[in-house]
């Protein structure tokens, strides 16, 4: 019982921690950042391997022949789509029925809380069309899903064509043990949300949809296909889903294994893997890929139609076809064979994918970092907060602190957070009446206004409270705020590691070293900085004005995501991170 009970050793350890507190904190921060950057260095990562025995080898003979016919179907689809001005429901139903599937449609409609300026929609009405290929000799207990979005304009026609071609080919096979559902969803994520809610009989987002007439069993895995050109040079795998949830790593391993077998170039985050990991440019390439994944995961939005499946415990990924300036082109038949191989393997599954990792980061498609390796980076940052809390506790130990003086700033901060969460959407009508702005701009500007108004609070609340400018008052508040931030960041990092890590990187130095004189950064700056960094990483750097517009659209998309799909980033930031940070802002203006 040495450390906790022996008073001499305790005293020595505590005096060490209080004397060297600031240097240890700085060392921890550097160590955390260095650890994180080191994760992309190839010798520190593991090669991906298939964990599920049922998907052991790629010993499947793919024989899909009808790539050209699939492209022709895609052209027909495009023509009918133009004629119908949206989803050509009747043509799709007839085509799927002629291929021997059981076809059903689902109508849905949703009024967005405010117009979406990126996709230019406000009152969304649409239809999903899906056909079920029943397994010939198996009980109808499990299903797989292949989906392609019906996008406006010229996008994703080839995807629907390949989907229909595969449906016809699969219909002639006899070894399917699971039902396969071929889904064409309209209005991408909104349609997918309606379909999933209808399939699972839940209604979490207040959407209006007609019930599904036909169903398969419980869905084991799903793939979403986005293909906008007749030939592709590489296939991109998108894994990040809603709230930063990732599918089981085995799905990515399956994709990679089949790409290797068939000989198609495969990428993740749009970046091709490089072999020269020991050179600086090779390492920075891996870091860029990993940082792109971190930024996408932290945003909490689904980056493909597959993102909404993950919430229902269905492993899903999106495969995007990319046509760039490379010599070697892959045609639709090869893509069809790849998908056929993947579905044959998924057909073999006896239980849901659970053997491999659910929490990982991928600096490239063949290497990954698991949670046991990347969590210490976050742990080192959280340690800084705990050391500061310990230091403050020892300083405050005589006399014992009173917690009641902390209550007022806490309550006011949380009320401001509630205002930031509820006011932007509720006041958009009033804002549109009085100011010459559109609804979306009204929502975003109200959010920014409430945020800035919160910054002005400490000056006003200090006039109300008397005698609160005591020397030790701010230390008590800082102790509570530091512990609150530590618990909050810990819980966030468990659910969405990237969001927790980015918040920790920017908020922990501020929180640890804030005193009534030092200046600090704000979470809004974090978001602004992240937007610019994201554009840099994607090799599409933006000017300041474009970056600012992008920033505003990110805020509006965040609020929309929360209203439409239940993304947690906006409520987390508004109701928890912002009040916590306001407590530190209060300390800043304590005198």
């Amino acid at each position, binding site marked *: 019982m040495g450390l906790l009970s022996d008073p001499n050793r305790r005293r020595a350890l505590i005096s060490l921690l209080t004397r060297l507190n600031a240097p240890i904190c700085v060392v921890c921060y550097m160590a955390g950042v260095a650890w994180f950057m080191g994760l992309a260095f190839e010798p520190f990562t593991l090669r991906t391997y298939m964990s599920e025995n049922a998907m052991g080898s790629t010993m499947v003979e793919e024989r899909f022949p009808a790539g050209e016919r699939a492209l022709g179907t895609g052209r027909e689809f495009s023509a009918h789509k133009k004629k119908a001005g949206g989803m050509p429901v009747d043509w799709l139903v007839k085509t799927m029925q002629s291929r021997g599937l059981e076809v059903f449609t689902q109508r849905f409609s949703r009024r967005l809380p405010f117009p979406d300026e990126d996709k230019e929609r406000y009152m969304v009405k649409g239809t999903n069309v899906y056909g079920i290929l029943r397994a010939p000799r198996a009980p109808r207990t499990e299903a797989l899903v292949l989906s392609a979005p019906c996008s406006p304009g010229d996008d994703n026609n080839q995807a629907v064509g390949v989907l229909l071609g595969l449906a016809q080919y699969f219909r002639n096979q006899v070894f399917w043990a699971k039902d396969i559902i071929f889904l064409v969803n309209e209005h991408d994520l909104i349609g997918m949300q309606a379909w999933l809610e209808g399939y699972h009989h839940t209604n979490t987002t207040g959407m209006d949809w007609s019930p599904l007439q036909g169903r398969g069993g419980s869905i084991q895995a799903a793939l979403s296909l986005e293909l906008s050109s007749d030939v592709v040079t590489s296939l991109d795998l998108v894994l990040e889903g809603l709230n930063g949830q990732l599918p089981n790593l085995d799905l990515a391993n399956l994709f990679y294994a089949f790409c290797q077998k068939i000989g198609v170039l495969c990428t993740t985050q749009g970046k091709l893997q490089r072999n020269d990991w020991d050179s600086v440019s090779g390492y920075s390439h891996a870091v860029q890929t990993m940082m792109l994944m971190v930024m996408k995961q932290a945003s909490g939005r689904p980056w493909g139609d597959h993102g909404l499946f993950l919430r229902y415990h269905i492993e899903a990924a999106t495969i995007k076809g990319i046509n760039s300036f490379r010599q070697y082109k892959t045609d639709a038949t090869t893509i069809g064979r790849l998908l056929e191989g993947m579905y044959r393997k998924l057909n073999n599954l006896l239980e849901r994918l659970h053997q491999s990792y659910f929490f990982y980061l991928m600096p490239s498609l063949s290497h990954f970092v698991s949670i046991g390796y990347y969590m210490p980076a976050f742990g080192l940052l959280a340690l800084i907060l705990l050391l500061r809390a310990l230091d403050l506790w020892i300083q405050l130990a005589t006399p014992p602190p009173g917690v009641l003086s902390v209550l007022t700033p806490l309550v006011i901060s949380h009320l401001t957070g509630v205002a930031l969460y509820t006011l932007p959407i509720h006041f958009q009508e009033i804002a549109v009446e009085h100011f010459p702005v559109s609804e979306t701009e009204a929502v975003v500007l109200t959010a920014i206004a409430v945020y800035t108004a919160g910054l002005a609070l400490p000056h006003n609340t200090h006039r109300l409270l008397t005698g609160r400018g005591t020397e030790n008052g701010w230390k008590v508040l800082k102790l509570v705020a530091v512990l609150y931030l530590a618990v909050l960041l810990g*819980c966030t990092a*468990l659910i969405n590691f990237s969001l927790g890590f980015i918040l920790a990187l920017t908020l922990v130095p501020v929180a640890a070293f804030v005193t009534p004189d030092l200046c600090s950064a704000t979470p809004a700056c974090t978001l602004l900085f992240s937007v610019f960094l994201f554009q840099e990483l994607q090799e599409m750097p933006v000017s300041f004005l474009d970056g600012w517009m992008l920033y505003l659209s990110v805020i509006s998309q965040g609020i929309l995501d929360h209203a439409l799909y239940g993304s947690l980033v906006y409520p987390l930031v508004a109701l928890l991170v912002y009040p916590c940070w306001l407590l530190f802002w209060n300390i800043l203006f304590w005198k």
Partner: protein
Amino acid sequence: MAAPLTLLLLVAVTVRAALYRSSLADLISERVEVVSPLTAWKRVVEGLALLDLGVSPYSGDVFHETPLIIYLFHFLVDYAEITFMLADVITAVALYLSVKDYNKQVFRKQKYALEADRYPLDCLELIRSPKEMQYIPLKVAMFYLLNPFTILSCVAKSTCGLNNAVIALFVLSTIKGNSRTHSSPAEGNSIYPLTLCAAALLYLLQRQYIPVNLRRFSFWWFVAQYAFMYLGSLFVIVGLSFFLLGSWDFLPSVYGFILSVPDLTPNIGLFWYFFAEMFEHFRLFFLCVFQINVFFYTVPLSIKLKEHPVFLIFMQLAVISIFKSYPTVGDIALYMAFLPVWSHLHRFLRNIFLVSCVLLACSALFPVLWHLWIYAGSANSNFYYAITLLFNVAQILLVSDYFYAFLRREHHLSHGLYLKRKDGSEATLVLK
């Protein structure tokens, strides 16, 4: 003192009523940390439905509370929310009155000891004054009523609130001096408050000035009287349950269920994970080990704390809450309500910061890891059990810290505050 207490009761009732009307009530009543298979309101409703159909409520392994509860709710099911709020109010008032009485006795004993010059000269700063003890009963009531754990337990309509009320009434009647009949309802509801009767016995012996000497006849006579009254009232309660229900099948369903732990729903206790992974061959052995663990601490604690029976009651309540087979946060709230009574020990507490941080962090992490395990499917039971273990370790550390502080203060009161070795140099106390 009545006005602040009434205000506190009003605030507490308002908070609970507001939460009952909100949408959070359904969410809370499903949380496994707040309700267990013993205390869930859903099961009481099922039992009532079975009773209305004329079937025994214990058929089908749904309902596991005593028949007294089900007959109470047979008449009060429409006023269930008021019943639970009233139970919380009764607990708070009972704790308030008992702590007030206890403080009076502590102060009186201290006065006699001061007059008899039994304290060394340098430990006068450890003597407690009436001014510092004035607000302690109100703080105890506040700690119970405004504890988030209690509020969650009340909003979920967990019968733990009723159990807490009975235990609090038992503590009140012990401190007032006549607890022989009141202990058995507490023990009737679950078996574990049996360990509290040793503490009550010691308290009554002290009150009657009968020394705890195993060779004296007066001691054994008192113990026999106490045991007779206790067993008698226990039989009365069990017999009453039998007559109300009409059969004996509540015995295996209530007491057999608590002792044999057949239901392994995850909760904040230590039993579920162990017994989920255990082979059938060893199940009885480990069951005995775990159950003896709950009762065993009575013996050494009673021997060490025979002069301080109220602290012994606190320790026993804590041990029961941590090691029982289906703990919930309502049990934790009951022993935490006693912490202000020992607030004079704060200068000897060593790990209070670490413990409170860990308890806070674990309380926040319970729902997160439950979500990751059950809904997202990314984690598994190991993650949740890790937090359960950490939570229980923190509670054990809290209880042992208070025990250490209490014993250390007693040591200082008899040996002086500044300890010297035999050669006169300064010494420090080390726990080995």
